[in-house]
């Protein structure tokens, strides 16, 4: 079962200073109530470290404990995702791409002036987190591939039924030719009995 645990958008300033959180969304329902605080701290710390180490214009995947952290740094805005090992890497990066595009559309360049961690929620990120639990949603390619596979299965079934139909049609043809031969014999016999009894 693939799962996204958290999504972060950070502003990565040039070397030296710590990155600043611009938006975050996390799904900590799998942890107990008392662990959530420490898990959140852990997520924040790891995201700061990884985004600091990701050079601009690069994508990076780091394995940490049982999570894979995927980060994509684009022009100083870094999007991070904490996923488990089964989440396909490509979908993860396309998801991060979408998040960045959305952020760019919503907030424009205002992130450049932010100096402290942003505490308010960004609803898009939360809904993205729930929607993209299924990797096919995030990655159009995966969705298309999946639909194509289903279509292929349906087509195989169709072909099987068409072959059965062919077999039935063959038996029908046999029967109908037998019928026409029998009816011809019947007609000839009827004509014959009619012809010979004109005397009596």
């Amino acid at each position, binding site marked *: 079962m693939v799962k996204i645990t958290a999504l972060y958008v950070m502003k990565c300033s040039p070397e030296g200073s710590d990155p600043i959180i611009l938006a975050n969304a996390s799904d900590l329902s799998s942890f107990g109530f008392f662990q959530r605080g420490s898990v959140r701290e852990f997520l924040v710390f790891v995201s700061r470290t990884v985004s600091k180490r990701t*050079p601009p*214009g*690069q*994508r*990076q*995947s780091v394995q940490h404990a049982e999570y894979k952290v995927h980060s994509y740094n684009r022009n100083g805005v870094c999007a991070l995702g904490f996923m488990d090992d089964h989440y396909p*890497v*490509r979908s993860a*990066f396309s998801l991060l791409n979408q998040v960045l595009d959305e952020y760019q559309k919503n907030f424009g360049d205002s992130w450049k002036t932010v100096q402290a961690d942003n505490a308010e929620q960004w609803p898009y990120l939360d809904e993205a987190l729930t929607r993209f639990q299924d990797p096919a949603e995030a990655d159009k*390619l*995966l969705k*298309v*591939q999946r639909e*194509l*596979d289903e*279509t*292929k299965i349906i*087509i*195989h079934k*169709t*072909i099987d039924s*068409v*072959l059965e*139909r*062919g077999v039935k*049609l*063959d038996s*029908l*043809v046999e029967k*109908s*030719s037998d*019928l*026409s031969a*029998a*009816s*011809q014999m*019947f*007609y000839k*016999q*009827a*004509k014959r*009995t*009619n012809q010979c*009894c*004109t005397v*009596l």
Partner: protein
Amino acid sequence: MHAKSGNASIRDRTQEFLGIAERVKKSYCSQNGPSSSGSKPEEPPRSAMAMQSEFNRRASKIGFGIHQTSQKLAKLAKLAKRTSVFDDPTVEIQELTTVIKQDITALNSAVVDLQFLSNSRNEREHISTDTTTHSTTVVDDLKNRLMSATKEFKDVLTLRTENLKVHENRRQLFSSSVSKNPTNPFIRQRPLASKSAASTSAASPLPWANGSQVDGESQPLLQQQQNQQQQQVVPIQDSYMQSRAEALQNVESTIHELSSIFNQLATLVSQQGEIAIRIDENMEDTVANVEGAQGALLKYLNSISSNRWLMIKIFFVLVFFLMIFLFFVA
């Protein structure tokens, strides 16, 4: 003093000549009586001889080295000629190439040293012109032999590059997937050149251009492995792009398969349509036959059920029997 090489036409008898000259000089000096002035002329001849033997020793060493190098070169030429598509002794050839290159450079510097030494000695000692011409001849001969060896080396290298090119073409003819491998290092070099720092990209073409052209294929791979800094990030970028490309190719192939399956479906259905038409014709024939038979039977029924001739015939038959009965009884 061993001979310089098997194919040299010069035989070094200088040492014998010098020995004879020394003996003659000694006898001459002993005639004049041992004197301090006499010992001095002995020393220059002795040092001259020492220089001369030194010169000869080095010349012979250089000649021996050239002979060994030409033997290695012959081996390399044989290997390069022998190379086939699958059994490529690339490692050996490269080792031999580097060894021969080192030998040639060492011999070159040794010949230059020898020439310098002979020039300095000739200027200093004022020895007879025979010796000077002899030494210059020796040095020139060594230089010529070295130059011919270098030319052979270059020929062997060009032969090897041509062979490699022929192999590449043949490989491309037979399989299109294999040809991606030699070109992949070049494709991978482009993201390296565009994304990595200028220093690494400048460093990788340079040693490649300076090195032998033969090793063009394997060296970019080596350069790649040596660029450790960018290597971590670029393969991730590469693998992301490659996985996307792979997924796209998968989708495209699936669509192709689907289209072929649809085509087969269309063929099947059209064939079955023809069968259906045949069945329809058979049924129509049957209907026509049955209708005709029904009409014939109806006629028969009519002719049986409404026959007046039959009445008359029965009456006549009865009357006939009555007549006969009346005739025979009455």
